[in-house]
Protein backbone atom coordinates (compact mmCIF):
# COMPACT_ATOMS: atom_id res chain seq x y z
CA UNK A 1 0.00 0.00 0.00
CA UNK A 2 2.86 2.32 0.85
CA UNK A 3 4.19 1.76 -2.67
CA UNK A 4 0.97 3.23 -4.02
CA UNK A 5 0.68 6.22 -1.71
CA UNK A 6 4.21 7.56 -1.93
CA UNK A 7 3.76 8.57 -5.58
CA UNK A 8 0.75 10.69 -4.73
CA UNK A 9 2.53 13.11 -2.45
CA UNK A 10 5.79 12.26 -0.70
CA UNK A 11 7.67 11.22 -3.83
CA UNK A 12 5.47 13.06 -6.31
CA UNK A 13 7.16 12.56 -9.69
CA UNK A 14 6.75 16.12 -10.96
CA UNK A 15 6.67 18.29 -7.86
CA UNK A 16 9.22 16.39 -5.78
CA UNK A 17 11.48 14.51 -8.17
CA UNK A 18 11.23 16.96 -11.10
CA UNK A 19 10.79 14.11 -13.57
CA UNK A 20 8.87 14.21 -16.80
CA UNK A 21 8.92 17.97 -17.13
CA UNK A 22 8.50 18.16 -20.91
CA UNK A 23 4.90 16.91 -21.15
CA UNK A 24 4.07 18.57 -17.84
CA UNK A 25 4.85 22.00 -19.20
CA UNK A 26 3.97 21.49 -22.83
CA UNK A 27 0.46 20.06 -22.86
CA UNK A 28 -1.10 21.79 -19.85
CA UNK A 29 -2.63 24.73 -21.68
CA UNK A 30 -6.00 23.25 -20.73
CA UNK A 31 -7.09 20.96 -17.90
CA UNK A 32 -8.44 18.36 -20.34
CA UNK A 33 -5.11 18.07 -22.15
CA UNK A 34 -3.34 17.58 -18.85
CA UNK A 35 -5.81 14.86 -17.91
CA UNK A 36 -5.47 13.00 -21.22
CA UNK A 37 -1.68 13.13 -21.06
CA UNK A 38 -1.90 11.79 -17.51
CA UNK A 39 -4.07 8.86 -18.61
CA UNK A 40 -1.67 8.03 -21.45
CA UNK A 41 1.22 8.01 -19.01
CA UNK A 42 -0.67 5.82 -16.51
CA UNK A 43 -1.33 3.28 -19.25
CA UNK A 44 2.25 3.18 -20.51
CA UNK A 45 3.72 3.18 -17.01
CA UNK A 46 1.42 0.39 -15.83
CA UNK A 47 2.10 -1.99 -18.70
CA UNK A 48 5.82 -1.21 -19.00
CA UNK A 49 6.26 -1.85 -15.27
CA UNK A 50 4.32 -5.09 -15.64
CA UNK A 51 6.46 -6.36 -18.51
CA UNK A 52 9.75 -5.14 -17.03
CA UNK A 53 9.10 -6.77 -13.69
CA UNK A 54 8.03 -10.01 -15.40
CA UNK A 55 11.19 -10.28 -17.48
CA UNK A 56 13.62 -8.80 -14.96
CA UNK A 57 15.43 -12.10 -14.46
CA UNK A 58 16.06 -12.90 -18.13
CA UNK A 59 17.32 -9.50 -19.32
CA UNK A 60 21.13 -9.22 -19.30
CA UNK A 61 22.29 -6.29 -17.20
CA UNK A 62 24.25 -4.54 -19.97
CA UNK A 63 21.37 -4.17 -22.42
CA UNK A 64 18.58 -3.53 -19.92
CA UNK A 65 18.10 0.17 -20.72
CA UNK A 66 17.76 -0.57 -24.43
CA UNK A 67 15.26 -3.35 -23.69
CA UNK A 68 13.20 -1.12 -21.39
CA UNK A 69 13.17 1.64 -23.99
CA UNK A 70 11.88 -0.70 -26.69
CA UNK A 71 9.15 -2.00 -24.35
CA UNK A 72 8.10 1.56 -23.52
CA UNK A 73 8.20 2.60 -27.18
CA UNK A 74 5.89 -0.29 -28.05
CA UNK A 75 3.24 0.72 -25.51
CA UNK A 76 3.54 4.37 -26.51
CA UNK A 77 2.88 3.39 -30.13
CA UNK A 78 -0.29 1.59 -28.97
CA UNK A 79 -1.49 4.67 -27.05
CA UNK A 80 -0.69 6.95 -29.96
CA UNK A 81 -2.60 4.83 -32.46
CA UNK A 82 -5.52 4.51 -30.00
CA UNK A 83 -5.73 8.28 -29.47
CA UNK A 84 -5.52 8.93 -33.20
CA UNK A 85 -8.41 6.56 -33.84
CA UNK A 86 -10.68 7.35 -30.88
CA UNK A 87 -9.92 10.96 -29.92
CA UNK A 88 -8.49 12.62 -33.03
CA UNK A 89 -8.99 16.10 -31.57
CA UNK A 90 -7.01 15.44 -28.42
CA UNK A 91 -4.38 13.58 -30.41
CA UNK A 92 -3.96 16.65 -32.59
CA UNK A 93 -3.54 18.94 -29.60
CA UNK A 94 -1.06 16.72 -27.83
CA UNK A 95 0.87 16.40 -31.09
CA UNK A 96 4.41 15.10 -30.77
CA UNK A 97 4.16 14.95 -26.99
CA UNK A 98 2.47 11.55 -27.10
CA UNK A 99 5.45 9.86 -28.82
CA UNK A 100 7.69 11.83 -26.48
CA UNK A 101 6.33 9.80 -23.56
CA UNK A 102 9.01 7.30 -24.64
CA UNK A 103 11.73 9.51 -23.26
CA UNK A 104 9.68 10.65 -20.28
CA UNK A 105 12.09 10.02 -17.45
CA UNK A 106 9.29 9.01 -15.05
CA UNK A 107 8.68 5.79 -16.95
CA UNK A 108 12.27 4.78 -17.54
CA UNK A 109 13.08 5.90 -14.00
CA UNK A 110 10.38 3.72 -12.42
CA UNK A 111 11.30 0.74 -14.61
CA UNK A 112 14.95 1.04 -13.67
CA UNK A 113 14.58 2.03 -10.02
CA UNK A 114 11.57 -0.04 -9.05
CA UNK A 115 10.06 -2.54 -11.50
CA UNK A 116 13.39 -4.22 -12.25
CA UNK A 117 13.96 -4.91 -8.55
CA UNK A 118 10.62 -5.65 -6.90
CA UNK A 119 7.81 -8.14 -7.38
CA UNK A 120 5.12 -7.74 -10.02
CA UNK A 121 2.46 -6.70 -7.49
CA UNK A 122 4.63 -4.06 -5.83
CA UNK A 123 5.66 -2.69 -9.23
CA UNK A 124 2.07 -2.33 -10.38
CA UNK A 125 1.10 -0.43 -7.23
CA UNK A 126 4.14 1.78 -7.61
CA UNK A 127 3.29 2.44 -11.27
CA UNK A 128 -0.32 3.32 -10.45
CA UNK A 129 0.68 5.65 -7.63
CA UNK A 130 3.27 7.47 -9.71
CA UNK A 131 0.89 7.66 -12.67
CA UNK A 132 -1.96 9.10 -10.63
CA UNK A 133 0.40 11.50 -8.88
CA UNK A 134 1.63 12.68 -12.27
CA UNK A 135 -1.95 13.08 -13.50
CA UNK A 136 -3.17 15.24 -10.61
CA UNK A 137 -0.10 17.44 -10.97
CA UNK A 138 -0.88 17.98 -14.63
CA UNK A 139 -4.57 18.49 -13.97
CA UNK A 140 -3.97 21.25 -11.40
CA UNK A 141 -1.38 22.94 -13.58
CA UNK A 142 -3.72 22.72 -16.57
CA UNK A 143 -6.64 24.06 -14.54
CA UNK A 144 -4.75 27.12 -13.29
CA UNK A 145 -3.48 27.92 -16.76
CA UNK A 146 -6.84 27.36 -18.44
CA UNK A 147 -8.89 29.37 -15.93
CA UNK A 148 -6.51 32.33 -15.83
CA UNK A 149 -5.43 32.17 -19.46
CA UNK A 150 -8.71 31.62 -21.25
CA UNK A 151 -11.40 32.01 -18.55
CA UNK A 152 -12.66 28.45 -19.07
CA UNK A 153 -12.51 25.18 -17.16
CA UNK A 154 -12.78 21.96 -19.19
CA UNK A 155 -14.05 24.13 -22.03
CA UNK A 156 -16.86 25.75 -20.02
CA UNK A 157 -16.66 29.47 -19.35
CA UNK A 158 -16.50 30.07 -15.61
CA UNK A 159 -15.11 33.58 -15.21
CA UNK A 160 -17.17 36.64 -16.24
CA UNK A 161 -16.18 38.30 -19.50
CA UNK A 162 -15.19 41.40 -17.51
CA UNK A 163 -12.14 39.41 -16.41
CA UNK A 164 -9.30 40.08 -18.79
CA UNK A 165 -7.63 36.73 -19.56
CA UNK A 166 -3.93 36.60 -18.71
CA UNK A 167 -2.71 35.47 -22.11
CA UNK A 168 0.76 34.82 -20.73
CA UNK A 169 -0.67 31.79 -18.89
CA UNK A 170 -1.30 29.82 -22.06
CA UNK A 171 2.08 30.81 -23.47
CA UNK A 172 5.23 28.80 -22.61
CA UNK A 173 6.29 31.43 -20.11
CA UNK A 174 3.17 30.87 -18.00
CA UNK A 175 3.85 27.15 -17.76
CA UNK A 176 7.24 27.71 -16.14
CA UNK A 177 5.77 30.37 -13.84
CA UNK A 178 2.83 28.31 -12.54
CA UNK A 179 4.95 25.19 -12.04
CA UNK A 180 7.53 27.23 -10.14
CA UNK A 181 4.82 28.51 -7.80
CA UNK A 182 3.32 25.01 -7.43
CA UNK A 183 6.63 23.57 -6.27
CA UNK A 184 7.11 26.51 -3.90
CA UNK A 185 3.61 25.90 -2.48
CA UNK A 186 4.44 22.23 -2.03
CA UNK A 187 7.62 23.19 -0.15
CA UNK A 188 5.59 25.51 2.07
CA UNK A 189 3.01 22.83 2.93
CA UNK A 190 5.75 20.30 3.59
CA UNK A 191 7.55 22.77 5.84
CA UNK A 192 4.44 23.54 7.85
CA UNK A 193 3.59 19.88 8.40
CA UNK A 194 6.99 19.27 9.99
Amino acid sequence: MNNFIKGLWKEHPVLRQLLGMCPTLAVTTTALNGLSMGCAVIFVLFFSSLVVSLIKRIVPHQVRIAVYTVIIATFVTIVDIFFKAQFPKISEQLGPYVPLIIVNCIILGRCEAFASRYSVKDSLFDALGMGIGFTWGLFILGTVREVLGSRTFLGIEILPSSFNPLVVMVLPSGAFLVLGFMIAAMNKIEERSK
Partner: protein
Amino acid sequence: MKDLLLIFISTVLINNFVLSYFLGICPFLGVSAKYESAFGMGMAVVFVMTLATAISWIIYHLVLAKLGLFFLEYVVFILVIASLVQIVEMFIRKFSPALYQSLGIYLPLITTNCSILGAALFMVTRNYKFLEAVVFGFSGGIGFSLVLMIMAGIREELKYADVPRVFKGAPITLITASLLALIFMGFSGLISS
Protein backbone atom coordinates in the same frame (compact mmCIF):
# COMPACT_ATOMS: atom_id res chain seq x y z
CA MET B 1 20.22 28.82 -48.96
CA LYS B 2 17.66 31.36 -47.76
CA ASP B 3 15.40 28.54 -46.56
CA LEU B 4 18.22 27.00 -44.58
CA LEU B 5 19.08 30.32 -42.93
CA LEU B 6 15.41 30.78 -42.08
CA ILE B 7 15.28 27.35 -40.46
CA PHE B 8 18.42 28.16 -38.49
CA ILE B 9 17.19 31.50 -37.12
CA SER B 10 13.68 30.32 -36.35
CA THR B 11 14.89 27.16 -34.58
CA VAL B 12 17.55 28.91 -32.51
CA LEU B 13 15.67 32.04 -31.47
CA ILE B 14 11.96 31.94 -32.23
CA ASN B 15 10.85 28.35 -31.78
CA ASN B 16 13.57 27.49 -29.33
CA PHE B 17 13.47 23.83 -28.32
CA VAL B 18 13.64 24.52 -24.62
CA LEU B 19 11.63 27.69 -24.23
CA SER B 20 8.81 27.14 -26.66
CA TYR B 21 8.57 23.37 -27.16
CA PHE B 22 9.69 22.41 -23.64
CA LEU B 23 12.03 19.77 -25.02
CA GLY B 24 15.07 18.87 -22.98
CA ILE B 25 13.80 20.45 -19.79
CA CYS B 26 15.34 17.78 -17.54
CA PRO B 27 18.96 18.53 -18.52
CA PHE B 28 18.01 22.20 -18.71
CA LEU B 29 17.16 22.15 -15.01
CA GLY B 30 19.71 19.52 -14.03
CA VAL B 31 22.93 20.62 -15.73
CA SER B 32 22.47 24.38 -15.68
CA ALA B 33 23.93 25.03 -12.24
CA LYS B 34 27.51 25.44 -13.51
CA TYR B 35 28.57 27.22 -16.68
CA GLU B 36 31.27 24.72 -17.55
CA SER B 37 29.05 21.66 -17.44
CA ALA B 38 26.35 23.54 -19.35
CA PHE B 39 28.85 24.14 -22.13
CA GLY B 40 29.90 20.48 -22.22
CA MET B 41 26.33 19.25 -22.29
CA GLY B 42 25.43 21.79 -24.98
CA MET B 43 28.21 20.70 -27.28
CA ALA B 44 27.37 17.02 -26.80
CA VAL B 45 23.74 17.75 -27.73
CA VAL B 46 24.69 19.71 -30.87
CA PHE B 47 26.85 16.81 -31.97
CA VAL B 48 24.34 14.03 -31.31
CA MET B 49 21.29 15.94 -32.51
CA THR B 50 22.83 16.74 -35.90
CA LEU B 51 23.85 13.12 -36.43
CA ALA B 52 20.57 11.74 -35.09
CA THR B 53 18.35 13.82 -37.39
CA ALA B 54 20.53 12.93 -40.38
CA ILE B 55 20.45 9.19 -39.70
CA SER B 56 16.77 9.15 -38.74
CA TRP B 57 15.97 10.98 -41.97
CA ILE B 58 17.81 8.39 -44.02
CA ILE B 59 16.17 5.47 -42.22
CA TYR B 60 12.70 7.00 -42.28
CA HIS B 61 12.64 8.00 -45.93
CA LEU B 62 14.70 5.21 -47.45
CA VAL B 63 13.55 2.26 -45.33
CA LEU B 64 10.36 2.84 -43.35
CA ALA B 65 8.55 4.91 -45.98
CA LYS B 66 9.49 2.49 -48.77
CA LEU B 67 8.22 -0.50 -46.82
CA GLY B 68 5.19 1.28 -45.34
CA LEU B 69 6.23 0.47 -41.77
CA PHE B 70 5.15 3.79 -40.30
CA PHE B 71 4.03 2.26 -37.01
CA LEU B 72 7.64 1.31 -36.28
CA GLU B 73 8.67 4.97 -36.41
CA TYR B 74 9.04 5.53 -32.64
CA VAL B 75 10.75 2.25 -31.88
CA VAL B 76 13.23 2.74 -34.70
CA PHE B 77 13.99 6.36 -33.83
CA ILE B 78 14.67 5.64 -30.19
CA LEU B 79 16.90 2.71 -31.15
CA VAL B 80 18.82 4.91 -33.59
CA ILE B 81 19.36 7.53 -30.90
CA ALA B 82 20.36 5.06 -28.20
CA SER B 83 22.83 3.20 -30.40
CA LEU B 84 24.17 6.43 -31.87
CA VAL B 85 24.93 7.75 -28.40
CA GLN B 86 26.66 4.50 -27.54
CA ILE B 87 28.76 4.53 -30.73
CA VAL B 88 29.69 8.18 -30.35
CA GLU B 89 30.76 7.51 -26.78
CA MET B 90 32.97 4.57 -27.78
CA PHE B 91 34.38 6.50 -30.73
CA ILE B 92 35.29 9.56 -28.70
CA ARG B 93 36.80 7.47 -25.93
CA LYS B 94 39.04 5.73 -28.43
CA PHE B 95 40.14 8.64 -30.58
CA SER B 96 40.00 11.72 -28.41
CA PRO B 97 40.47 11.11 -24.70
CA ALA B 98 40.59 14.87 -24.10
CA LEU B 99 37.16 15.36 -25.65
CA TYR B 100 35.91 12.33 -23.77
CA GLN B 101 37.03 13.91 -20.52
CA SER B 102 34.81 16.92 -21.15
CA LEU B 103 31.82 15.35 -22.94
CA GLY B 104 31.90 11.78 -21.67
CA ILE B 105 29.68 12.03 -18.65
CA TYR B 106 26.96 13.89 -20.58
CA LEU B 107 26.65 11.40 -23.39
CA PRO B 108 24.65 8.67 -21.60
CA LEU B 109 22.25 11.34 -20.35
CA ILE B 110 21.46 12.35 -23.90
CA THR B 111 19.52 9.18 -24.72
CA THR B 112 16.73 10.37 -22.44
CA ASN B 113 17.00 13.96 -23.60
CA CYS B 114 13.67 14.41 -25.29
CA SER B 115 14.92 17.19 -27.55
CA ILE B 116 16.77 14.62 -29.69
CA LEU B 117 13.72 12.43 -30.26
CA GLY B 118 11.68 15.63 -30.61
CA ALA B 119 13.93 16.86 -33.39
CA ALA B 120 13.58 13.55 -35.24
CA LEU B 121 9.77 13.64 -34.90
CA PHE B 122 9.44 17.28 -35.98
CA MET B 123 11.64 16.61 -38.98
CA VAL B 124 9.14 13.97 -40.14
CA THR B 125 5.97 15.99 -39.49
CA ARG B 126 7.43 19.03 -41.24
CA ASN B 127 8.52 17.07 -44.32
CA TYR B 128 12.03 18.45 -44.37
CA LYS B 129 14.39 17.52 -47.19
CA PHE B 130 17.68 15.92 -46.17
CA LEU B 131 19.76 19.11 -46.00
CA GLU B 132 16.98 20.97 -44.22
CA ALA B 133 16.72 18.19 -41.67
CA VAL B 134 20.43 18.32 -40.93
CA VAL B 135 20.37 22.10 -40.52
CA PHE B 136 17.28 21.75 -38.34
CA GLY B 137 19.04 19.24 -36.08
CA PHE B 138 22.15 21.37 -35.87
CA SER B 139 20.29 24.59 -35.07
CA GLY B 140 18.09 22.79 -32.55
CA GLY B 141 21.25 21.79 -30.72
CA ILE B 142 22.66 25.32 -30.93
CA GLY B 143 19.42 26.77 -29.57
CA PHE B 144 19.45 24.30 -26.71
CA SER B 145 23.07 25.12 -25.83
CA LEU B 146 22.44 28.86 -26.05
CA VAL B 147 19.57 28.76 -23.57
CA LEU B 148 21.39 26.28 -21.33
CA MET B 149 24.43 28.56 -21.12
CA ILE B 150 22.39 31.72 -20.52
CA MET B 151 20.57 29.88 -17.75
CA ALA B 152 23.83 28.63 -16.21
CA GLY B 153 25.19 32.18 -16.24
CA ILE B 154 22.10 33.45 -14.42
CA ARG B 155 22.12 30.62 -11.91
CA GLU B 156 25.75 31.22 -11.01
CA GLU B 157 24.80 34.77 -10.07
CA LEU B 158 21.62 33.61 -8.37
CA LYS B 159 23.68 31.83 -5.73
CA TYR B 160 24.41 35.23 -4.19
CA ALA B 161 20.81 36.42 -4.27
CA ASP B 162 18.55 36.36 -1.25
CA VAL B 163 15.82 34.00 -2.41
CA PRO B 164 12.85 33.23 -0.08
CA ARG B 165 13.39 29.84 1.50
CA VAL B 166 10.49 27.96 -0.14
CA PHE B 167 11.54 29.27 -3.55
CA LYS B 168 15.10 27.98 -3.28
CA GLY B 169 16.18 25.44 -5.88
CA ALA B 170 13.67 24.33 -8.49
CA PRO B 171 10.98 27.04 -8.05
CA ILE B 172 13.29 30.01 -8.61
CA THR B 173 14.91 28.22 -11.54
CA LEU B 174 11.52 27.70 -13.16
CA ILE B 175 10.54 31.32 -12.60
CA THR B 176 13.83 32.43 -14.15
CA ALA B 177 13.06 30.16 -17.10
CA SER B 178 9.64 31.78 -17.35
CA LEU B 179 11.21 35.23 -17.68
CA LEU B 180 13.69 33.89 -20.24
CA ALA B 181 10.79 32.48 -22.26
CA LEU B 182 9.13 35.90 -22.18
CA ILE B 183 12.34 37.53 -23.42
CA PHE B 184 12.70 35.02 -26.24
CA MET B 185 9.14 35.78 -27.31
CA GLY B 186 10.50 39.15 -28.34
CA PHE B 187 12.34 37.42 -31.16
CA SER B 188 9.12 36.28 -32.77
CA GLY B 189 8.98 39.57 -34.66
CA LEU B 190 12.20 38.70 -36.49
CA ILE B 191 10.46 36.71 -39.19
CA SER B 192 7.13 37.87 -40.55
CA SER B 193 5.15 34.91 -41.76
